[in-house]
């Protein structure tokens, strides 16, 4: 027993550890903190393994190890490679963490391979999927990825006068006498509303306009009421609206009611809340070359370019698009965030998805750009 028991315990423990490694135990619980390296890293004897090891290092921000694993024929130098993965200029990517990835081989030969990988980023505004095609080559008995060139828009130095209007809000002291502080809330109006039934639930969408002469902070809420007059659900437009509307500006809104069947709804009670808010008429962002197209994955998308006509960097752009049928009715509203920052006087591509069922009906569309700037947040 003196010998057998220790052997059993040691061999048993070792066996269990090997079993755990083979069953692909998870390397970590939480996300977003630079984790340690794995005690064992299998060498990249095939393209899948090479890409897997590379993306694990990207996930754990082991940049030296990751860059050393790249092929020397990569066009991106080390700084470009890191910036491509971590983002720059306070962009959405610079806030994000690589949470997971799904690689899929496109084309493999003895010494060349093309892999398509869906990168799942955890970002402050929700999960974002970024599809990249990576080319790999075999160098000796090890496969290495060839990282594409990372183009950073060159912004010429110039002085841009900003003479747009800026509204500041004085809210008055707390103990003003009754009636003396009567600056009314801005006048906003819902100019269209349409409720649609989808697999995920009911969606209420439309457009709202600021009819006043000062900026308005807007939130649209909707309440679904059944036949008996009782409330089924109450939801808000949340981030599917441009909250700050300048005078005469129009914004789409969309309110999702998960798991609610529109056939049970007798009445939709709309409620728009407007409040005074300090705002600036700058930056102006143009939306150029918009067209409906099909992306690399066969999805129907509205794509175009955002042109920053101002002198400040827009760190995160949020595109909200409303789609109309031939009678001008809003048939869909979708939104998307742009991963890279919008530098002054430069443009970045965007794309928002349109469900197949809706894209045939779409005759026209209108795009609004909401933005977050670290300088002004």
């Amino acid at each position, binding site marked *: 027993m003196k010998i057998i028991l220790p052997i059993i315990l040691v061999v048993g423990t070792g066996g269990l550890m090997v079993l755990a490694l083979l069953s692909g135990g998870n390397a970590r619980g939480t996300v977003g903190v630079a984790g340690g390296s794995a005690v064992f890293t299998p060498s990249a004897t095939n393209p899948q393994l090479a890409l897997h090891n590379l993306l694990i290092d990207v996930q754990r921000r082991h940049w030296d190890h990751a860059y050393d694993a790249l092929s020397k024929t990569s066009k991106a130098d080390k700084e470009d490679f890191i910036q491509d993965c971590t983002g720059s200029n306070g962009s959405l990517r610079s806030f994000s963490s690589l949470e997971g990835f799904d690689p899929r081989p496109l084309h493999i030969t003895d010494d060349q391979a093309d892999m398509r990988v869906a990168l799942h980023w955890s970002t402050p505004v929700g999960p974002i999927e970024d599809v990249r095609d990576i080319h790999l080559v075999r160098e000796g008995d090890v496969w290495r990825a060839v990282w594409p060139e990372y183009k950073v828009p060159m912004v010429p130095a110039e002085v841009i006068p900003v003479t747009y209007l800026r509204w500041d809000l004085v809210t008055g002291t707390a103990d003003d006498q009754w009636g003396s502080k009567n600056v*009314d809330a801005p006048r906003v109006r819902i100019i269209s509303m349409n409720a649609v039934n989808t697999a995920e639930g009911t969606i209420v969408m439309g457009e709202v306009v600021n009819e006043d002469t000062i900026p308005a902070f807007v939130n649209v809420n909707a309440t679904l009421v059944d036949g008996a007059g009782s409330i089924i659900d109450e939801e808000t437009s949340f981030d599917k609206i441009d909250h700050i509307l300048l*005078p005469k500006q129009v914004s789409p809104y969309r309110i999702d009611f998960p798991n609610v069947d529109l056939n049970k709804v007798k009445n939709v009670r709309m409620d728009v809340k407007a409040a005074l808010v300090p705002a600036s008429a700058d930056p102006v962002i143009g939306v150029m070359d918009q067209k409906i197209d099909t992306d690399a994955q066969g999805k129907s998308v509205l794509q175009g370019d955002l042109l920053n006509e101002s002198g400040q960097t827009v760190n995160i752009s949020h595109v909200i698009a409303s789609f109309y049928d031939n009678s001008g009715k809003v048939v869909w509203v979708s939104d998307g965030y742009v991963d890279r920052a919008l530098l002054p006087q430069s443009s970045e591509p965007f794309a928002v998805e349109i469900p197949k069922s809706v894209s045939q009906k779409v005759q026209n569309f209108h795009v609004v750009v909401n933005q977050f700037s670290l300088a002004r947040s």
Partner: protein
Amino acid sequence: MRHVIPICEVLCFLGVTAPQEIRAPQEVVAGEEASIPTTGSGKATLYLFGPGVSDKRDVSLGDDIRLPGADLQNAGQYFAVVCSSACRSASFFVSAAKPSSLTFMAHPSRVPVAEGDAISGVAIPFDKYRNLVLSPETVSFRLSAGKSSIFSRSVPAADGIAWFRAASGKSAGTLQVTASLNDLEMLRAVQQVASEPCNLRITGERNAKGILVRTEPVHDCAGNPVPDGTIVTFTATADGEKSTVDAPIKQDIARAQIAASGLAVISAASGVVMGNELRLGVR
């Protein structure tokens, strides 16, 4: 339901008939001193209940009980209860003093020009202790733009409230809204702003970056310049692609740089108002 005479009579007590008598004062004005004459003799306890006061102190029967003005500042009904061997109670009313302040609410803060019944105001007179003055007073309302007065009316307050409604003026700018009562005067400012843009017209020219499009000075139908910051949405369609820019008006004119090549059809809109359409060929 039994209709009860205006002054509240004491209807029932606990138990015993009491030897002393107290008589409430007829009418007391807020903040003024009052006294309650009593009969009988010996020591007793006075309880005073009213809006803002619940007081208890020892008194001598047979003397007048002095109620200081500081206890009678809030208008309303007061109950004086005098207890010795038993308790006797009397009630009296304190009414508001003369008006010394005016709460005045004018709406809206911003009103389009030349709009009927667009401006309203409510004035409520209070005395110096913030009691509602219910005696019939006349409040004068006046609307003036610069030197010229565009509205003036005297309104008798009903149930302590006077109000008015009036149309907005013709020209944009600040409208002084005044409510006055005797020597009291309260001032509010209402911004008269241009209404919807009228006859929105755009022009455009090609330049190195694409097309520079701009509006002619944007005014409302009364000729008032539309406020700066108002958004004009320029839309250009070329080769099946569409470009839009939400440009704010600056000194009556909105302008935008649109990257469009080939034959471009350009239009503009501000809120729900559409402008003219422009066609620009290839350079």
